[in-house]
């Protein structure tokens, strides 16, 4: 008989008692009528019997003890592993805590730097020779301008600044300024000097008197080919340059109540000047100064003092905070 897998499976099932009653009947019928199937069945039965009659081996007597010992050993190793894991966990936790502390310290440092950069004045080295007259730029104060007692007194004032004016009508303008200083009764006028063909006026007065002086100077302002206000910072002798300064803008800066506000106002004006310089016809500054209408709206800086230079100071105004302003009038050739 050819060994059919299906017949073999049925015969094996028959041997193993895994057939249904109907299948068993079928196999029994086959065995009765087919000697080859019967022989195959006997062969498979004998094969099964050979394996099934193999002696049953028993586990060694100490198997139980060995298993227990193995379990105990694994438990101990497991505990050690757990301990190691706990140690690792503790180290990991400590590491994470240190990282967190480092992160916090770093964050505080960064925040401190940011806050300092906002609150503290911008600075460059005092010894720097940088002296750029770009709008809003911080420049080192030229030491040659103020020396001696005047310089020391200026250093004590609330506002410190310098106004550099250039004019082609030097003689007339200089004379006008001198008179205006005298007429405004700036008693603490520290004097003037001619340095390198320039007039230098070192003024110490209250704001009102300075406003009055600037109001007077407004009449001759068109004669200035350039007007640059340098606002000194409290430390390190550094300055912020505001080009294209007008009396109104100068009053605005001086009128600020705090050092930071003055710096902010100076920067704002410098920025506006820059924008204005980029626009045709200088519309922005003219509009801000109220001389021309402007199609675009730029918010005017908020002034804490008067919008316009005040008139003659009252007697009580003499008690106001002292400001220090150095006015430098320099001649230029008409062709410049």
């Amino acid at each position, binding site marked *: 008989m050819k*060994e059919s*897998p299906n017949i*073999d*499976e049925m015969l*094996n*099932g028959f041997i*193993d008692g*895994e057939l249904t009653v109907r299948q068993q009947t079928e196999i029994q019928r086959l065995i009765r009528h087919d000697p080859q199937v019967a*022989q195959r069945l*006997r*062969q*498979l039965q*004998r*094969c*099964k*019997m*050979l*394996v*099934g*009659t*193999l*002696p*049953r*081996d*028993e*586990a*060694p007597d100490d*198997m*139980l003890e*060995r*298993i*227990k010992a*193995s*379990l105990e050993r*694994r438990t101990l190793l497991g505990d050690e592993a757990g301990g190691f894991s706990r140690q690792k966990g503790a180290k990991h936790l400590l590491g994470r805590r240190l990282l967190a502390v480092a992160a916090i310290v770093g964050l505080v440092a960064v925040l401190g730097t940011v806050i300092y950069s906002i609150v503290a004045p911008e600075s460059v080295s005092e010894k720097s020779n940088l002296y750029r007259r770009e709008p809003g730029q911080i420049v080192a104060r030229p030491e040659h301008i103020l020396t001696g007692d005047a310089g020391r007194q200026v250093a004590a004032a609330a506002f410190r600044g310098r106004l550099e004016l250039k004019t082609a009508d030097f003689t007339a303008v200089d004379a006008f300024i001198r008179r205006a200083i005298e007429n405004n009764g700036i008693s603490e006028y520290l004097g003037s000097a001619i340095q390198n063909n320039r007039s230098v006026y070192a003024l110490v007065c209250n704001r009102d008197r300075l406003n009055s002086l600037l109001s007077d100077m407004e009449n001759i302002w068109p004669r200035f080919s350039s007007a640059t206000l340098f606002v000194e910072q409290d430390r390190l002798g550094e300055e912020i340059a505001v080009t294209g300064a007008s009396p109104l803008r100068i009053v605005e800066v001086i009128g600020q109540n705090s050092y930071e506000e003055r710096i902010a106002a100076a920067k704002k004006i410098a920025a506006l000047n820059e924008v204005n310089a980029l626009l045709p016809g200088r519309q922005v500054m003219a509009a801000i100064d109220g001389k021309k209408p402007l199609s675009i709206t730029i918010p005017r800086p908020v002034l804490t003092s008067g919008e316009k230079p005040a008139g003659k100071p009252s007697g009580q105004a003499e008690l106001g905070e002292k400001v220090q302003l150095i006015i430098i009038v320099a001649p230029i050739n008409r062709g410049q």
Partner: protein
Amino acid sequence: MRSGTANINIDETVLIEQCRRGDFTAMERLIIRYQNRIYNVILKMCANPDDAEELTQETFVKILEGIENFNGRSSFYTWAFRIAVNLTINHCKRGQKLVTRSIDAEDSEYNEQAKTQLKEFLQDDGSLEPSAVAQNRELCRIIVDSLSKLDDTQRAVIVLRDIEDMSYAQIADVLDIELGTVKSRLSRARSSLKEILEANFQ
């Protein structure tokens, strides 16, 4: 009743529960109950007493360590044997430690009388009492060696059926295969074994 289920009595569930709670006495009882049967199956599969001892030990450690995860979807009996058989098959595949002595090469080692007895028995010319086979060590060695020549999975299905006397369903559960696969695999295994045995005297 099959021997596979004969020892599974009512208190086994209680015993398993006690083992889960860490009761060492219950663990000992469970080991004693199954150790010989598991050892015997492993030994018939790997044909190496030392390896069988190690594998039995490892099987019980795994059983007791994993008993908390025993979910009862299968019987504890088939679950325990699944661990044993898987460990043994992996061991055989991994280390090739299975005794694969060539019967051809060692024909001369077999007792001629045993070979003759085997030949007559398989050719349906003689008769052998089961007790006689069990007592004939040489005949047993031929059978074990022949078993070891089978494919691992075929050997597993024959051992589980003919030595451990498991039902087809239990074998399917232990080997995690379909019932039809058990039938076909067992059929092929017995045919192969018959050919291997006959090769001893041809």
